[in-house]
Protein backbone atom coordinates (compact mmCIF):
# COMPACT_ATOMS: atom_id res chain seq x y z
CA UNK A 1 0.00 0.00 0.00
CA UNK A 2 1.33 3.39 -1.02
CA UNK A 3 1.94 5.71 1.87
CA UNK A 4 -0.20 8.80 1.41
CA UNK A 5 0.30 11.85 3.54
CA UNK A 6 -2.40 14.26 4.57
CA UNK A 7 -4.19 16.34 3.39
CA UNK A 8 -6.65 13.97 1.79
CA UNK A 9 -8.75 16.62 0.10
CA UNK A 10 -7.71 19.08 -2.59
CA UNK A 11 -8.89 22.46 -3.72
CA UNK A 12 -9.24 21.32 -7.31
CA UNK A 13 -6.86 23.76 -8.95
CA UNK A 14 -4.69 22.33 -11.70
CA UNK A 15 -2.00 23.40 -14.13
CA UNK A 16 -4.44 22.99 -16.96
CA UNK A 17 -6.92 25.36 -15.32
CA UNK A 18 -4.22 27.96 -14.81
CA UNK A 19 -2.96 27.70 -18.38
CA UNK A 20 -6.37 27.79 -19.97
CA UNK A 21 -7.47 30.80 -18.01
CA UNK A 22 -4.39 32.63 -19.29
CA UNK A 23 -5.26 31.58 -22.84
CA UNK A 24 -8.83 32.74 -22.22
CA UNK A 25 -7.61 36.09 -21.00
CA UNK A 26 -5.63 36.55 -24.20
CA UNK A 27 -8.73 36.19 -26.38
CA UNK A 28 -9.52 39.95 -26.54
CA UNK A 29 -5.99 40.72 -27.70
CA UNK A 30 -6.08 37.84 -30.15
CA UNK A 31 -9.38 38.90 -31.64
CA UNK A 32 -8.18 42.46 -31.93
CA UNK A 33 -5.07 41.32 -33.75
CA UNK A 34 -7.24 39.43 -36.22
CA UNK A 35 -9.33 42.56 -36.66
CA UNK A 36 -6.20 44.60 -37.36
CA UNK A 37 -4.26 42.24 -39.55
CA UNK A 38 -6.90 39.89 -40.84
CA UNK A 39 -5.94 36.41 -41.99
CA UNK A 40 -2.27 37.23 -41.57
CA UNK A 41 -2.69 37.36 -37.84
CA UNK A 42 -4.67 34.14 -37.91
CA UNK A 43 -1.95 32.38 -39.89
CA UNK A 44 0.79 33.52 -37.52
CA UNK A 45 -1.10 32.43 -34.43
CA UNK A 46 -2.05 29.05 -35.86
CA UNK A 47 1.45 28.28 -37.12
CA UNK A 48 3.05 29.32 -33.80
CA UNK A 49 0.66 27.30 -31.69
CA UNK A 50 0.90 24.34 -34.01
CA UNK A 51 4.66 24.40 -34.10
CA UNK A 52 4.80 24.74 -30.33
CA UNK A 53 2.58 21.72 -29.81
CA UNK A 54 4.47 19.65 -32.36
CA UNK A 55 7.83 20.58 -30.83
CA UNK A 56 6.55 19.70 -27.37
CA UNK A 57 5.33 16.35 -28.62
CA UNK A 58 8.61 15.68 -30.42
CA UNK A 59 10.70 16.51 -27.37
CA UNK A 60 8.65 14.36 -25.07
CA UNK A 61 8.84 11.49 -27.51
CA UNK A 62 12.59 11.87 -27.94
CA UNK A 63 13.11 11.91 -24.18
CA UNK A 64 10.80 8.90 -23.83
CA UNK A 65 8.60 10.71 -21.37
CA UNK A 66 4.83 10.53 -21.09
CA UNK A 67 3.23 12.93 -23.53
CA UNK A 68 0.53 14.02 -21.12
CA UNK A 69 2.22 17.41 -20.43
CA UNK A 70 1.50 18.30 -24.05
CA UNK A 71 -2.15 18.78 -23.21
CA UNK A 72 -1.72 20.87 -20.07
CA UNK A 73 -2.04 24.00 -22.19
CA UNK A 74 1.40 25.36 -21.45
CA UNK A 75 2.80 24.72 -24.93
CA UNK A 76 -0.29 26.17 -26.58
CA UNK A 77 -0.02 29.22 -24.36
CA UNK A 78 3.64 29.66 -25.22
CA UNK A 79 2.78 29.42 -28.92
CA UNK A 80 0.04 32.01 -28.59
CA UNK A 81 2.24 34.38 -26.62
CA UNK A 82 5.04 34.21 -29.18
CA UNK A 83 2.58 34.81 -32.00
CA UNK A 84 1.30 37.92 -30.26
CA UNK A 85 4.79 39.37 -29.97
CA UNK A 86 5.64 38.91 -33.65
CA UNK A 87 5.24 41.58 -36.34
CA UNK A 88 2.52 40.90 -38.87
CA UNK A 89 5.08 40.56 -41.62
CA UNK A 90 6.87 37.62 -40.02
CA UNK A 91 7.37 34.93 -42.68
CA UNK A 92 6.07 31.43 -42.02
CA UNK A 93 9.44 29.82 -41.33
CA UNK A 94 10.26 32.38 -38.71
CA UNK A 95 7.07 31.77 -36.76
CA UNK A 96 7.84 28.08 -36.70
CA UNK A 97 11.45 28.75 -35.75
CA UNK A 98 10.30 30.99 -32.91
CA UNK A 99 7.96 28.37 -31.54
CA UNK A 100 10.67 25.73 -31.78
CA UNK A 101 13.19 27.95 -30.02
CA UNK A 102 10.72 28.59 -27.25
CA UNK A 103 9.70 25.02 -26.66
CA UNK A 104 12.94 23.19 -27.34
CA UNK A 105 15.69 25.56 -26.37
CA UNK A 106 14.22 27.37 -23.48
CA UNK A 107 11.78 24.89 -22.04
CA UNK A 108 12.24 21.19 -22.79
CA UNK A 109 16.02 21.29 -22.56
CA UNK A 110 15.65 22.48 -19.00
CA UNK A 111 13.41 19.59 -18.12
CA UNK A 112 10.03 20.85 -19.23
CA UNK A 113 7.39 22.97 -17.62
CA UNK A 114 8.40 24.44 -14.30
CA UNK A 115 12.15 24.31 -14.73
CA UNK A 116 12.80 26.94 -17.38
CA UNK A 117 14.54 29.94 -15.85
CA UNK A 118 13.52 32.21 -18.73
CA UNK A 119 10.10 32.81 -20.13
CA UNK A 120 10.11 30.63 -23.27
CA UNK A 121 8.04 33.00 -25.41
CA UNK A 122 10.17 35.98 -24.50
CA UNK A 123 13.49 34.28 -25.00
CA UNK A 124 12.37 33.02 -28.41
CA UNK A 125 11.27 36.51 -29.33
CA UNK A 126 14.63 37.96 -28.22
CA UNK A 127 16.56 35.33 -30.16
CA UNK A 128 14.56 36.25 -33.26
CA UNK A 129 15.04 39.97 -32.76
CA UNK A 130 18.78 39.56 -32.50
CA UNK A 131 19.06 37.05 -35.32
CA UNK A 132 16.73 38.71 -37.83
CA UNK A 133 16.67 42.39 -36.97
CA UNK A 134 15.27 43.53 -40.32
CA UNK A 135 12.25 41.24 -40.38
CA UNK A 136 11.55 41.80 -36.73
CA UNK A 137 11.37 45.55 -37.08
CA UNK A 138 9.20 45.89 -40.18
CA UNK A 139 5.75 46.77 -38.97
CA UNK A 140 2.80 46.65 -41.30
CA UNK A 141 0.53 49.69 -41.17
CA UNK A 142 -2.70 48.45 -39.65
CA UNK A 143 -6.03 49.01 -41.37
CA UNK A 144 -4.89 51.84 -43.60
CA UNK A 145 -3.36 49.41 -46.05
CA UNK A 146 -6.76 48.24 -47.24
CA UNK A 147 -6.38 49.93 -50.56
CA UNK A 148 -2.95 48.40 -51.10
CA UNK A 149 -3.55 44.89 -49.87
CA UNK A 150 -6.67 43.48 -48.37
CA UNK A 151 -5.60 41.30 -45.46
CA UNK A 152 -9.14 40.08 -44.99
CA UNK A 153 -8.63 38.23 -48.25
CA UNK A 154 -7.20 34.85 -47.33
CA UNK A 155 -5.27 34.39 -50.58
CA UNK A 156 -3.48 37.73 -50.24
CA UNK A 157 -2.70 37.11 -46.59
CA UNK A 158 -1.36 33.64 -47.23
CA UNK A 159 0.72 34.86 -50.15
CA UNK A 160 2.21 37.49 -47.90
CA UNK A 161 2.76 34.95 -45.16
CA UNK A 162 4.40 32.29 -47.30
CA UNK A 163 6.14 34.23 -50.06
CA UNK A 164 6.80 37.66 -48.59
CA UNK A 165 6.13 41.20 -49.72
CA UNK A 166 8.05 40.84 -52.99
CA UNK A 167 5.50 38.41 -54.35
CA UNK A 168 2.80 41.05 -54.14
CA UNK A 169 4.60 43.65 -56.25
CA UNK A 170 4.57 46.22 -53.47
CA UNK A 171 7.57 47.63 -51.73
CA UNK A 172 8.13 47.13 -48.06
CA UNK A 173 8.16 50.85 -47.42
CA UNK A 174 4.72 51.35 -48.87
CA UNK A 175 2.97 49.15 -46.39
CA UNK A 176 5.05 49.57 -43.27
CA UNK A 177 5.39 52.22 -40.63
CA UNK A 178 7.42 52.72 -37.50
CA UNK A 179 6.10 51.85 -34.08
CA UNK A 180 5.51 54.85 -31.86
CA UNK A 181 8.59 53.98 -29.82
CA UNK A 182 10.74 53.53 -32.92
CA UNK A 183 9.43 56.73 -34.37
CA UNK A 184 10.36 58.72 -31.30
CA UNK A 185 13.76 57.11 -31.05
CA UNK A 186 14.60 57.87 -34.68
CA UNK A 187 13.31 61.40 -34.30
CA UNK A 188 15.47 62.00 -31.24
CA UNK A 189 18.54 60.74 -33.06
CA UNK A 190 17.79 63.25 -35.80
CA UNK A 191 17.53 66.03 -33.29
CA UNK A 192 13.76 66.37 -33.38
CA UNK A 193 12.15 66.95 -29.99
CA UNK A 194 9.65 64.50 -28.58
CA UNK A 195 6.53 66.70 -28.87
CA UNK A 196 7.37 67.42 -32.50
CA UNK A 197 7.95 63.75 -33.20
CA UNK A 198 4.65 62.80 -31.64
CA UNK A 199 2.86 65.47 -33.62
CA UNK A 200 4.22 64.01 -36.83
CA UNK A 201 3.29 60.42 -36.07
CA UNK A 202 0.47 59.27 -38.40
CA UNK A 203 -1.73 58.40 -35.43
CA UNK A 204 -2.38 60.13 -32.24
CA UNK A 205 -0.41 58.20 -29.67
CA UNK A 206 -3.49 57.80 -27.53
CA UNK A 207 -4.87 55.62 -30.30
CA UNK A 208 -2.48 53.09 -28.89
CA UNK A 209 -4.90 52.58 -26.05
CA UNK A 210 -7.46 51.26 -28.49
CA UNK A 211 -4.81 49.75 -30.65
CA UNK A 212 -4.56 51.52 -33.96
CA UNK A 213 -0.81 51.69 -34.38
CA UNK A 214 2.11 49.82 -35.80
CA UNK A 215 3.56 47.02 -33.75
CA UNK A 216 3.47 43.32 -33.01
CA UNK A 217 0.13 41.76 -33.76
CA UNK A 218 -0.87 41.30 -30.14
CA UNK A 219 0.61 44.30 -28.44
CA UNK A 220 -1.30 47.00 -30.31
CA UNK A 221 -4.30 47.34 -28.09
CA UNK A 222 -3.49 48.27 -24.52
CA UNK A 223 -7.20 48.07 -23.80
CA UNK A 224 -7.58 44.45 -24.87
CA UNK A 225 -4.50 43.45 -22.89
CA UNK A 226 -5.69 45.36 -19.87
CA UNK A 227 -9.02 43.55 -20.01
CA UNK A 228 -7.24 40.20 -20.13
CA UNK A 229 -4.92 41.21 -17.31
CA UNK A 230 -7.78 42.33 -15.11
CA UNK A 231 -9.55 39.05 -15.78
CA UNK A 232 -6.45 37.14 -14.61
CA UNK A 233 -6.12 39.37 -11.55
CA UNK A 234 -9.76 38.82 -10.74
CA UNK A 235 -9.43 35.05 -11.06
CA UNK A 236 -6.36 35.09 -8.86
CA UNK A 237 -4.20 33.46 -11.51
CA UNK A 238 -1.72 36.32 -11.33
CA UNK A 239 -1.13 38.69 -8.44
CA UNK A 240 -1.13 42.46 -8.58
CA UNK A 241 2.48 42.81 -7.40
CA UNK A 242 4.34 42.30 -10.65
CA UNK A 243 2.14 44.14 -13.19
CA UNK A 244 1.45 47.04 -10.85
CA UNK A 245 5.02 47.60 -9.75
CA UNK A 246 6.22 47.18 -13.33
CA UNK A 247 3.76 49.68 -14.82
CA UNK A 248 4.00 52.15 -11.95
CA UNK A 249 7.80 52.18 -12.11
CA UNK A 250 7.74 52.93 -15.83
CA UNK A 251 5.05 55.57 -15.35
CA UNK A 252 6.83 57.26 -12.45
CA UNK A 253 10.22 57.32 -14.12
CA UNK A 254 8.83 58.67 -17.37
CA UNK A 255 6.75 61.23 -15.50
CA UNK A 256 9.78 62.54 -13.67
CA UNK A 257 12.00 62.49 -16.73
CA UNK A 258 9.40 64.13 -18.98
CA UNK A 259 8.84 66.86 -16.43
CA UNK A 260 12.55 67.56 -16.25
CA UNK A 261 13.24 67.43 -19.98
CA UNK A 262 10.00 67.32 -21.99
CA UNK A 263 11.88 67.57 -25.26
CA UNK A 264 13.87 64.45 -24.69
CA UNK A 265 11.55 62.18 -22.79
CA UNK A 266 8.08 61.07 -23.81
CA UNK A 267 5.21 61.44 -21.35
CA UNK A 268 4.22 58.52 -19.08
CA UNK A 269 0.95 57.71 -20.84
CA UNK A 270 2.84 57.32 -24.08
CA UNK A 271 5.21 54.85 -22.45
CA UNK A 272 2.40 52.89 -20.86
CA UNK A 273 0.40 52.57 -24.06
CA UNK A 274 3.17 52.06 -26.56
CA UNK A 275 5.09 48.94 -27.41
CA UNK A 276 4.92 45.62 -25.63
CA UNK A 277 4.80 46.97 -22.12
CA UNK A 278 1.24 45.90 -21.34
CA UNK A 279 1.75 42.46 -22.84
CA UNK A 280 4.99 42.01 -20.92
CA UNK A 281 3.63 43.36 -17.66
CA UNK A 282 0.51 41.24 -17.59
CA UNK A 283 1.48 38.09 -19.45
CA UNK A 284 5.25 37.73 -19.67
CA UNK A 285 6.55 39.05 -16.38
CA UNK A 286 3.81 37.25 -14.48
CA UNK A 287 4.73 33.87 -15.92
CA UNK A 288 4.84 32.02 -12.62
CA UNK A 289 7.69 29.72 -13.58
CA UNK A 290 10.18 32.48 -14.32
CA UNK A 291 9.08 35.06 -11.76
CA UNK A 292 9.65 35.18 -7.99
CA UNK A 293 7.40 33.37 -5.57
CA UNK A 294 7.47 35.80 -2.67
CA UNK A 295 5.42 38.98 -2.61
CA UNK A 296 8.34 41.18 -1.78
CA UNK A 297 10.34 39.46 -4.50
CA UNK A 298 7.58 40.08 -7.01
CA UNK A 299 7.61 43.77 -6.17
CA UNK A 300 11.37 43.92 -6.61
CA UNK A 301 11.04 41.98 -9.84
CA UNK A 302 8.43 44.38 -11.19
CA UNK A 303 10.38 47.45 -10.18
CA UNK A 304 13.53 46.03 -11.77
CA UNK A 305 11.64 45.30 -14.98
CA UNK A 306 10.25 48.82 -15.03
CA UNK A 307 13.60 50.42 -14.41
CA UNK A 308 15.34 48.46 -17.13
CA UNK A 309 12.49 48.97 -19.61
CA UNK A 310 12.61 52.71 -19.06
CA UNK A 311 16.40 52.81 -19.33
CA UNK A 312 16.55 50.83 -22.55
CA UNK A 313 13.69 52.76 -24.13
CA UNK A 314 15.25 56.11 -23.36
CA UNK A 315 18.97 55.46 -23.51
CA UNK A 316 19.50 52.09 -25.15
CA UNK A 317 20.05 50.98 -28.69
CA UNK A 318 16.67 49.27 -28.97
CA UNK A 319 13.44 51.25 -29.10
CA UNK A 320 11.62 48.67 -26.94
CA UNK A 321 13.16 47.25 -23.77
CA UNK A 322 10.31 45.48 -22.01
CA UNK A 323 11.27 42.04 -23.32
CA UNK A 324 14.91 42.46 -22.42
CA UNK A 325 13.92 43.82 -19.04
CA UNK A 326 11.81 40.81 -18.16
CA UNK A 327 14.47 38.43 -19.43
CA UNK A 328 17.16 40.21 -17.44
CA UNK A 329 15.09 40.09 -14.31
CA UNK A 330 14.44 36.40 -14.98
CA UNK A 331 18.16 35.89 -14.39
CA UNK A 332 17.86 37.36 -10.92
CA UNK A 333 14.80 35.38 -9.83
CA UNK A 334 16.56 32.66 -7.82
CA UNK A 335 18.50 35.25 -5.86
CA UNK A 336 15.46 37.46 -5.35
CA UNK A 337 13.52 34.48 -4.08
CA UNK A 338 16.28 33.51 -1.72
CA UNK A 339 16.69 36.92 -0.15
CA UNK A 340 13.05 37.95 0.09
CA UNK A 341 11.56 35.07 1.96
CA UNK A 342 8.76 36.28 4.22
CA UNK A 343 9.19 36.52 7.96
CA UNK A 344 8.22 33.16 9.37
CA UNK A 345 5.49 33.04 12.04
CA UNK A 346 6.90 33.78 15.46
CA UNK A 347 10.37 34.62 14.21
CA UNK A 348 12.20 37.89 13.97
CA UNK A 349 12.73 39.21 10.47
CA UNK A 350 15.75 37.53 8.96
Amino acid at each position, binding site marked *: MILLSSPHIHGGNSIRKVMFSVILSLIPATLFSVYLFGWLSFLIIVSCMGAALVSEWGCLRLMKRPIAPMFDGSAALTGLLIALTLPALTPWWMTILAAMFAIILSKQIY*GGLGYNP*FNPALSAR*VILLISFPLQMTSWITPMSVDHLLNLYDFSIASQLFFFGVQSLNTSLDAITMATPLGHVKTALSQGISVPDALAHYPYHWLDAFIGNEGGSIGESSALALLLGGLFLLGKGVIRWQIPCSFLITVALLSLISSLIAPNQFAPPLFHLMAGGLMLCAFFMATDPVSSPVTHKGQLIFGIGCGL*ITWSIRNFGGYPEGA*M*FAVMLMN*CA*VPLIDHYTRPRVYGRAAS
Partner: protein
Amino acid sequence: MYEFAVILLSTILVNNYVLAKFLGICPFLGVSGKVETAIGMSFAVMFVMTLASTASWLVQQYILIPLDILYLQTIFFILIIAVLVQFIEMMIHKTSPVLYQGLGIFLPLITTNCAVLGVALLNIQHDHGLFTSAFYGLGAAIGFGLVLILFAGLRERLDGAPTPKAFKGSPLTLITAGMMSLAFMGFSGLVKF
Protein backbone atom coordinates in the same frame (compact mmCIF):
# COMPACT_ATOMS: atom_id res chain seq x y z
CA MET B 1 32.22 61.96 -11.21
CA TYR B 2 29.86 61.56 -14.14
CA GLU B 3 32.63 59.92 -16.09
CA PHE B 4 33.20 57.32 -13.39
CA ALA B 5 29.50 56.50 -13.26
CA VAL B 6 29.50 55.97 -17.00
CA ILE B 7 32.55 53.73 -16.73
CA LEU B 8 30.91 51.63 -14.06
CA LEU B 9 27.63 51.35 -15.96
CA SER B 10 29.42 50.51 -19.15
CA THR B 11 31.65 47.83 -17.70
CA ILE B 12 28.99 46.28 -15.51
CA LEU B 13 26.09 46.13 -17.93
CA VAL B 14 26.81 47.17 -21.48
CA ASN B 15 30.28 45.82 -22.07
CA ASN B 16 30.10 43.12 -19.48
CA TYR B 17 33.35 41.20 -19.55
CA VAL B 18 31.71 37.81 -19.45
CA LEU B 19 28.54 38.26 -21.45
CA ALA B 20 29.58 40.83 -24.01
CA LYS B 21 33.36 40.44 -24.28
CA PHE B 22 33.40 36.73 -23.47
CA LEU B 23 36.45 37.01 -21.23
CA GLY B 24 36.83 35.10 -17.99
CA ILE B 25 34.58 32.26 -19.10
CA CYS B 26 36.64 29.63 -17.28
CA PRO B 27 35.86 30.72 -13.72
CA PHE B 28 32.41 31.81 -14.85
CA LEU B 29 31.60 28.21 -15.66
CA GLY B 30 33.85 26.69 -13.02
CA VAL B 31 32.75 28.33 -9.80
CA SER B 32 29.12 29.07 -10.57
CA GLY B 33 27.88 25.87 -8.97
CA LYS B 34 27.02 27.51 -5.68
CA VAL B 35 26.01 31.04 -4.80
CA GLU B 36 28.24 31.21 -1.73
CA THR B 37 31.34 30.18 -3.66
CA ALA B 38 30.40 32.55 -6.45
CA ILE B 39 30.19 35.42 -3.98
CA GLY B 40 33.60 34.52 -2.60
CA MET B 41 35.05 34.32 -6.08
CA SER B 42 33.51 37.65 -7.02
CA PHE B 43 35.18 39.39 -4.14
CA ALA B 44 38.49 37.72 -4.84
CA VAL B 45 38.33 38.80 -8.48
CA MET B 46 37.24 42.27 -7.46
CA PHE B 47 40.29 42.58 -5.24
CA VAL B 48 42.68 41.25 -7.83
CA MET B 49 41.23 43.13 -10.78
CA THR B 50 41.10 46.54 -9.13
CA LEU B 51 44.58 46.29 -7.71
CA ALA B 52 45.97 44.73 -10.85
CA SER B 53 44.64 47.47 -13.08
CA THR B 54 46.01 50.13 -10.76
CA ALA B 55 49.36 48.44 -10.32
CA SER B 56 49.72 47.68 -13.99
CA TRP B 57 49.05 51.31 -14.83
CA LEU B 58 51.73 52.39 -12.36
CA VAL B 59 54.18 49.87 -13.73
CA GLN B 60 53.40 50.95 -17.25
CA GLN B 61 53.88 54.63 -16.51
CA TYR B 62 56.84 54.48 -14.15
CA ILE B 63 58.80 51.43 -15.21
CA LEU B 64 57.96 50.30 -18.68
CA ILE B 65 57.75 53.64 -20.46
CA PRO B 66 60.75 55.36 -18.78
CA LEU B 67 62.93 52.31 -19.34
CA ASP B 68 61.54 51.78 -22.81
CA ILE B 69 60.86 48.12 -22.26
CA LEU B 70 57.24 47.96 -23.42
CA TYR B 71 57.87 44.53 -24.91
CA LEU B 72 57.99 43.20 -21.35
CA GLN B 73 54.50 44.48 -20.68
CA THR B 74 52.73 41.10 -20.63
CA ILE B 75 55.33 39.48 -18.40
CA PHE B 76 55.22 42.33 -15.92
CA PHE B 77 51.46 42.33 -15.79
CA ILE B 78 51.28 38.58 -15.32
CA LEU B 79 53.75 38.89 -12.49
CA ILE B 80 51.62 41.54 -10.78
CA ILE B 81 48.50 39.46 -11.16
CA ALA B 82 50.25 36.33 -9.93
CA VAL B 83 51.48 38.09 -6.83
CA LEU B 84 48.03 39.48 -6.06
CA VAL B 85 46.44 36.10 -6.57
CA GLN B 86 48.98 34.44 -4.30
CA PHE B 87 48.20 37.03 -1.69
CA ILE B 88 44.43 36.62 -1.85
CA GLU B 89 44.85 32.86 -1.84
CA MET B 90 46.74 33.00 1.44
CA MET B 91 44.22 35.39 2.84
CA ILE B 92 41.24 33.18 1.98
CA HIS B 93 43.01 30.07 3.21
CA LYS B 94 43.51 31.80 6.52
CA THR B 95 40.11 33.43 6.89
CA SER B 96 37.73 30.92 5.30
CA PRO B 97 39.00 27.36 4.83
CA VAL B 98 35.60 26.24 3.53
CA LEU B 99 35.56 28.88 0.83
CA TYR B 100 39.16 27.93 0.09
CA GLN B 101 38.08 24.34 -0.44
CA GLY B 102 35.05 25.42 -2.43
CA LEU B 103 37.04 27.59 -4.83
CA GLY B 104 39.64 24.88 -5.18
CA ILE B 105 41.80 25.13 -8.25
CA PHE B 106 39.91 28.16 -9.53
CA LEU B 107 41.43 30.41 -6.92
CA PRO B 108 45.03 30.18 -8.15
CA LEU B 109 43.62 30.10 -11.65
CA ILE B 110 42.51 33.73 -11.31
CA THR B 111 46.08 34.32 -12.46
CA THR B 112 45.18 32.96 -15.83
CA ASN B 113 41.76 34.58 -15.85
CA CYS B 114 42.00 36.38 -19.13
CA ALA B 115 39.62 39.02 -17.91
CA VAL B 116 42.20 40.28 -15.40
CA LEU B 117 44.97 40.60 -17.94
CA GLY B 118 42.42 41.87 -20.41
CA VAL B 119 41.44 44.72 -18.15
CA ALA B 120 45.07 45.66 -17.54
CA LEU B 121 45.89 45.65 -21.24
CA LEU B 122 42.72 47.43 -22.31
CA ASN B 123 43.42 50.17 -19.80
CA ILE B 124 46.74 50.82 -21.51
CA GLN B 125 45.16 50.56 -24.94
CA HIS B 126 42.43 53.08 -24.13
CA ASP B 127 44.97 55.48 -22.54
CA HIS B 128 43.07 55.57 -19.27
CA GLY B 129 44.35 57.64 -16.40
CA LEU B 130 45.16 56.13 -13.02
CA PHE B 131 41.71 56.58 -11.49
CA THR B 132 39.94 55.70 -14.69
CA SER B 133 41.97 52.51 -14.79
CA ALA B 134 41.09 51.66 -11.23
CA PHE B 135 37.41 52.30 -11.85
CA TYR B 136 37.53 50.40 -15.09
CA GLY B 137 39.01 47.43 -13.26
CA LEU B 138 36.51 47.71 -10.44
CA GLY B 139 33.61 47.99 -12.85
CA ALA B 140 34.76 45.02 -14.86
CA ALA B 141 35.10 43.01 -11.66
CA ILE B 142 31.66 44.04 -10.42
CA GLY B 143 30.22 43.09 -13.78
CA PHE B 144 31.99 39.76 -13.60
CA GLY B 145 30.79 39.21 -10.04
CA LEU B 146 27.23 40.24 -10.85
CA VAL B 147 26.79 37.80 -13.69
CA LEU B 148 28.69 35.11 -11.80
CA ILE B 149 26.36 35.37 -8.82
CA LEU B 150 23.22 35.59 -10.95
CA PHE B 151 24.42 32.62 -12.94
CA ALA B 152 25.18 30.65 -9.80
CA GLY B 153 21.65 31.33 -8.60
CA LEU B 154 20.25 30.02 -11.85
CA ARG B 155 22.47 26.98 -11.77
CA GLU B 156 21.49 26.14 -8.23
CA ARG B 157 17.90 26.18 -9.37
CA LEU B 158 18.68 23.98 -12.35
CA ASP B 159 20.30 21.37 -10.12
CA GLY B 160 17.15 19.51 -9.24
CA ALA B 161 15.57 19.72 -12.66
CA PRO B 162 14.85 16.57 -14.69
CA THR B 163 17.07 17.76 -17.50
CA PRO B 164 17.41 15.38 -20.45
CA LYS B 165 20.56 13.32 -19.98
CA ALA B 166 22.24 14.67 -23.08
CA PHE B 167 22.04 18.21 -21.78
CA LYS B 168 22.94 17.60 -18.15
CA GLY B 169 25.88 19.58 -16.83
CA SER B 170 27.97 21.68 -19.18
CA PRO B 171 25.61 21.79 -22.20
CA LEU B 172 22.79 23.24 -20.20
CA THR B 173 25.15 25.54 -18.38
CA LEU B 174 26.41 26.92 -21.66
CA ILE B 175 22.91 27.33 -23.06
CA THR B 176 21.89 29.21 -19.94
CA ALA B 177 24.95 31.41 -20.21
CA GLY B 178 23.97 32.08 -23.81
CA MET B 179 20.47 33.06 -22.75
CA MET B 180 21.90 35.45 -20.19
CA SER B 181 24.13 36.92 -22.83
CA LEU B 182 21.06 37.42 -25.03
CA ALA B 183 19.31 39.25 -22.25
CA PHE B 184 22.34 41.47 -21.64
CA MET B 185 22.35 42.40 -25.32
CA GLY B 186 19.37 44.53 -24.48
CA PHE B 187 21.77 46.94 -22.83
CA SER B 188 23.74 47.47 -26.00
CA GLY B 189 23.93 51.12 -26.90
CA LEU B 190 22.86 52.15 -23.39
CA VAL B 191 26.01 54.19 -22.77
CA LYS B 192 28.77 54.91 -25.16
CA PHE B 193 32.18 54.52 -23.65
